[in-house]
């Protein structure tokens, strides 16, 4: 079969655990799961793209009295500064997706080629690089991101970078372990026997075979990046206000929770949960779809 290597994407990624839980819950209907995930994702993506057109107010200017509870005109209420929570809900998806995508791209861009090359080369290089990657991997993700973010200072690119560093080892590990199995496959030996260059072998015989699992890691990773980003802004290490950001809103809203102004916390929280869920379900569904060796008997 095409991809029978049992991939473990690591338990470090919370999203992977969420997704797996859902898979158990839904049983065999992975198609439904992928579909729901996809719908959630497209909703958020559309929201991010068309934010200027669908948000009723500007997210960075007061649009009513402060701390209005959800009501007609402000369906999610207003913040302590009188910003419309619904508008910030919509605009927040931009920041969340943007940073998650940039961070994940950086991580993939570094992690995948490193995994490919090192896995293929093997030997001492492999042992050294794997040791470095493993030591990063064992570090608690959020704490590492906090440290780097504090060092680099605020800014979209800096935040992305600090999140990316956390996830490079994830790619590296998944890709490397797959490459080291695939490189001993007969078709790779076959490629060598027809005189293919190493780069050709990596590009045409190994990469296509690890790509499916890369897609899975990628979408799981974005989900985790969304959470990490929210975590960073929650701690005040993210994008400086007043740029709409769910993590920041969550932190702000927390201060007013005691006086029963729940809407400032609940809505950004729901946004984060739904987006993460969307990516996780999509990833897990894809995983099952791309590894069709479940329930099949030869």
């Amino acid at each position: 079969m095409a991809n029978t290597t049992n991939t473990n994407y690591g338990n470090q990624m919370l999203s992977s655990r969420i997704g797996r839980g859902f898979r158990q819950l839904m049983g065999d209907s992975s198609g439904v799961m992928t579909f729901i995930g996809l719908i959630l994702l497209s909703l958020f993506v559309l929201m991010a793209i068309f934010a200027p057109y669908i948000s009723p107010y500007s997210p960075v200017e007061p649009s009513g009295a402060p701390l209005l509870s959800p009501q007609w005109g402000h369906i999610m209420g207003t913040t302590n500064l009188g910003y419309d929570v619904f508008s910030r809900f919509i605009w927040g998806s931009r920041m969340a997706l943007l940073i998650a995508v940039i961070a994940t791209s950086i991580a993939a861009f570094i992690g995948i080629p490193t995994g490919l090359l090192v896995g293929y080369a093997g030997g001492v290089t492999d042992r050294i690089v794997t040791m470095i990657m493993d030591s990063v991997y064992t570090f608690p993700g959020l704490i590492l991101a906090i440290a780097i973010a504090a060092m680099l200072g605020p800014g979209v690119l800096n935040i992305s970078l600090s999140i990316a560093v956390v996830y490079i080892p994830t790619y590296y590990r998944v890709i490397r372990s797959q490459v080291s199995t695939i490189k001993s496959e007969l078709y790779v030996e076959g490629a060598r026997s027809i005189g293919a260059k190493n780069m050709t072998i990596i590009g045409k015989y190994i990469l296509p075979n690890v790509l499916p699992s890369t897609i899975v890691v990628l979408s799981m990773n974005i989900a985790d990046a969304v959470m990490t980003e929210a975590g960073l802004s929650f701690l005040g290490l993210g994008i400086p206000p007043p740029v709409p950001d769910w993590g920041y809103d969550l932190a702000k809203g927390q201060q007013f929770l005691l006086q029963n102004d729940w809407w400032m916390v609940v809505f950004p929280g729901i946004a984060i949960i739904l987006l993460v869920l969307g990516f996780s379900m999509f990833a897990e569904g894809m995983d099952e779809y791309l590894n069709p060796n479940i329930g099949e008997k030869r």
Partner: protein
Amino acid sequence: MQVSTKQVLLSVENLKKYFPLKIPWTQALLKRERPTVKAIDDISFNIKKGETLGLVGESGSGKTTTGRVIIRLIEPTSGRILFDKKDISKLSKENLRRARKDFQMIFQDPMASLNPYMRIGKTVSHPLEIHKIGTPAERKEKVLSLFEKVNLIPAKEFFNRFPRQLSGGQRQRVVIARAVVTNPKFIVADEATAMLDVSVRSQILKLMIDIKEDLGLTYLFITHDLASAKYICDRIAVMYLGKIVEIAKTSDLFKEPLHPYTRILMGAVPIPDPKLKRSKIIPKGEIPSPINVPSGCRFHTRCPYATKICSEEEPELVEHQGRLVACHLFDKK
């Protein structure tokens, strides 16, 4: 024709392949000599142009390693591999890569030897691309005509299929097509029919014979199946524990196997005839580990004819009645 058949295409001289064993470094410090697996232990043979030499033996005999070392998918420990009078074992990496279009390999498992993500048309034309032979249009034409030759018809339809859409027999046809697409002179076929179903096995064997005649190929046919070897091989070399124990013409070998091991191997093949009740010599035990090779003749631990000399002195591969055999029974000294 007469002249060309006598020409030697491949000549293997004193080939050895020892795999060092992995041991903990604490032990490595204490031991002067690292233990090795002697997969191939000093073998020599020739293959003439247009000939098919069978390499027969049990698993652990070193036959598969031999096939891979000859086309240098594995580096030999020592010895010479003269292909068309050039020593393959001395070629630089780049020269070896270029030379690969002249010798190809057919693998045992047709399920595993094709890239699952590459369409089979591309798989077969890839060697041409790698060696920069022809234009894209010419390559495609060549592949299509090859598909017809190996009976993957309609060729145009097969061209765009993926391996998973093919049956085992069809995949092996693809593997064969890929092996011959660069017009090689020599092909190592490693258990090419072992994984196939009985009714398909003979088909593929026939295809290999036909394509060999067609393209003037030379084969090294590695197999554990003496019955299949009988149909395709001109000569057969029997391997045991890294050594060749007998080389003979196929007809001679089947008429009268000389080496006791060959006899046992031949007697062990089940014959599809329930009436035949053979008296069989069933040897004791199993093939010993190639780490601790028995002294003297390697087969003496299992040989029903073993005498004292067999455990002391290693018999050489000597000529006996026009064939080569390594056994003290036939050693005139």
